[in-house]
């Protein structure tokens, strides 16, 4: 499937070029990787590679190898947003190529504020202090000795869809929705560590801090910390990937990705939010009246059709299995409906097991396309009864400048020729 680069309306190419020119003064280190190969471009099997044999049963295969890799014929890659630097940037998961509910670790979306740190787990420490009876420093070995759990949770950046408020912008589902991914996470319940440290009276918040160059910091309410937050070191059966916070990160079920501090090195227990940059200047939602919503942690219920989606082409009329993903930061997906007439009528989609709290759920819908122009949409309802809204409903309340938390129904137009595009309908 063709991958496309989403166009960033706020960063037209000329200003990026201007910036790169200027920033040269800061030294090569800062722009190193500006032309990183493989980022945002699909790599086709190298032309120099010999073709696969016509009959693989007549040729000895490759030997065993210590760490596997996918077939050279598979091309799905993360796609970078055209940010001004490659270190404070993000990449999107290729949802159009996703199968089931788990995102391969290598394709989990990225959002870094100052690059991916190179951390030796033998030297990494987690400090827990502040309003606790027993401040402590733990090694990674000590963290891994503690009772652990494994849970399948989605992580979604609250900026997922930020280009889509005013007009359809991204060219595919990777650009409109690719800042969500779903993994099995393994780690220690944060509540266990906090009880171990002994919470003092009045301890109502904590400040979580990362060991990256941004020393990324967020304030988290104690109530959620004592409920279901994980201090995770495992992702999909192995150590968390460096891009996802190796060796240790917070995983906060259902909450915006930014709060789930990666490369976690410190938890300070406090009695109020610390008003860090990422919870004041960023990740706050500006309303049309000039007020801004703060601590909008929950990711509201959302769904999207991944096939057929923009950038794809249906070869002709006939049967298609429509499929997509649904998830909710308030718990479990109860139902998904699909419309093929722009929202005039809705029919129930089939939810594929397992349907887990705070996880992607896969839905399918059988569709016989008659070859006429069609608008396909999905709409989910979560266990609280919350129904995914139309974009117009969101815009009516929030305007088009709140940046974060766009969870509206997505519309794809299937043209009579079979081409699928991103539309507002």
């Amino acid at each position: 499937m063709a991958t496309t680069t989403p166009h960033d309306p706020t960063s037209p190419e000329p200003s990026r070029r201007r910036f790169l020119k200027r920033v040269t003064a800061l030294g090569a280190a800062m722009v190193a990787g500006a032309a990183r190969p493989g980022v945002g471009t699909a790599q086709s099997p190298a032309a120099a590679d010999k073709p696969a044999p016509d009959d693989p049963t007549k040729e000895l295969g490759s030997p065993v190898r210590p760490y596997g890799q996918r077939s050279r014929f598979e091309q799905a890659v993360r796609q970078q947003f055209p940010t001004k630097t490659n270190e404070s940037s993000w990449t999107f998961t290729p949802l159009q190529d996703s199968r089931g509910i788990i995102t391969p670790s290598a394709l989990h979306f990225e959002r870094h504020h100052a690059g991916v740190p190179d951390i030796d787990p033998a030297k990494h420490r987690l400090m827990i202090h502040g309003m606790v009876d027993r401040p402590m420093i733990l090694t990674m070995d000590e963290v891994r000795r503690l009772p652990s759990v494994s849970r399948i949770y989605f992580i979604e950046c609250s900026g997922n869809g930020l280009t889509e408020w005013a007009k359809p912008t991204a060219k595919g589902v990777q650009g409109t929705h690719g800042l969500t991914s779903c993994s099995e996470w393994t780690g220690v319940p944060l509540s266990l560590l906090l009880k171990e440290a002994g919470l003092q009276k009045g301890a109502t918040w904590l400040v979580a801090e990362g060991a990256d160059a941004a020393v990324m910091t967020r304030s988290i309410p104690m109530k959620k910390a004592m409920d279901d937050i994980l201090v995770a070191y495992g992702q999909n059966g192995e150590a968390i990937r460096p891009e996802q916070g190796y060796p240790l990160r917070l995983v906060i079920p259902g909450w915006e990705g930014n709060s789930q501090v990666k490369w976690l090195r410190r938890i300070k227990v406090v009695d109020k939010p610390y008003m860090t940059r990422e919870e004041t200047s960023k990740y706050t939602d500006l309303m049309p009246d000039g007020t801004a919503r703060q601590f909008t942690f929950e990711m509201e219920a959302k769904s999207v059709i991944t096939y057929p989606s923009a950038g794809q082409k249906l070869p002709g009329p006939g049967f298609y299995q429509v499929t997509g993903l649904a998830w909710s930061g308030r718990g479990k997906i109860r139902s998904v409906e699909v419309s093929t007439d722009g929202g005039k009528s809705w029919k129930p989609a089939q939810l594929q097991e397992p349907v887990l709290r705070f996880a992607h759920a896969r839905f399918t819908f059988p569709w016989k396309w008659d070859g006429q122009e069609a608008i396909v949409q999905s709409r989910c309802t979560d266990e609280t009864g919350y129904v995914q809204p139309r974009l117009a409903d969101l815009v009516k309340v929030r305007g088009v400048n709140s940046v974060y938390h766009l969870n509206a129904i997505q519309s794809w137009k299937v043209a009579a020729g079979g081409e699928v595009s991103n539309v507002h309908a």
Partner: protein
Amino acid sequence: MCMPRLGFLRQAPRTLLAAGIIFAMAHLGAPSVLAQSPTYGVGRLPTQAEFKAWDIAIGPDGRELPPGSGTAKAGKAVYDAKCAVCHGPTGKEGPQDVLAGGKGTLNTPKPLKTVGSYWPYATTLWDFTNRAMPFNAPGSLTPDEVYAATAYVLYLNGIVGETDIINARTLPQVKMPNRDAFVPDPRPDAGKGAKAGNEKAAARK
């Protein structure tokens, strides 16, 4: 969610506990530390040097701010040398985040969110500059440089005077113009789900 029962080790056989204690003593070399970990016996007490090096988060009351001070006048040199290349000569030109201006734009179709027009706390500016700036040399500024650069950016926004002394006592007292514009999360707020979700949300609180 199912949580491990913390109490189970308290009922563990004495031999297991004894083994843990012996391990902890050998590992940590300080019997007094045993009091720090009553259930699992992992971790150790951080040293004063570790507290000092890591305890850098600055909340709105500025309790953790270090000694030092600066003025906008002194901050101009720091800004010109280390900040202007990304934020522009007067904080308005970019190409990275615009730091100054934007006053009165938040409720217009083209809001400009700057330190002056948007940020609710001056302590945030000190904290972020100290931990993450400059982008290519994070954490390299001295406390005096951070105070001075902070003072200069506040000055560019007309929030402090050119010679006002910014330090651990005065910084938390700076009242940012947009402080009162931040509101709690009212969601669910839109569409058919707003009502149903609101009832559930209310029940949870």
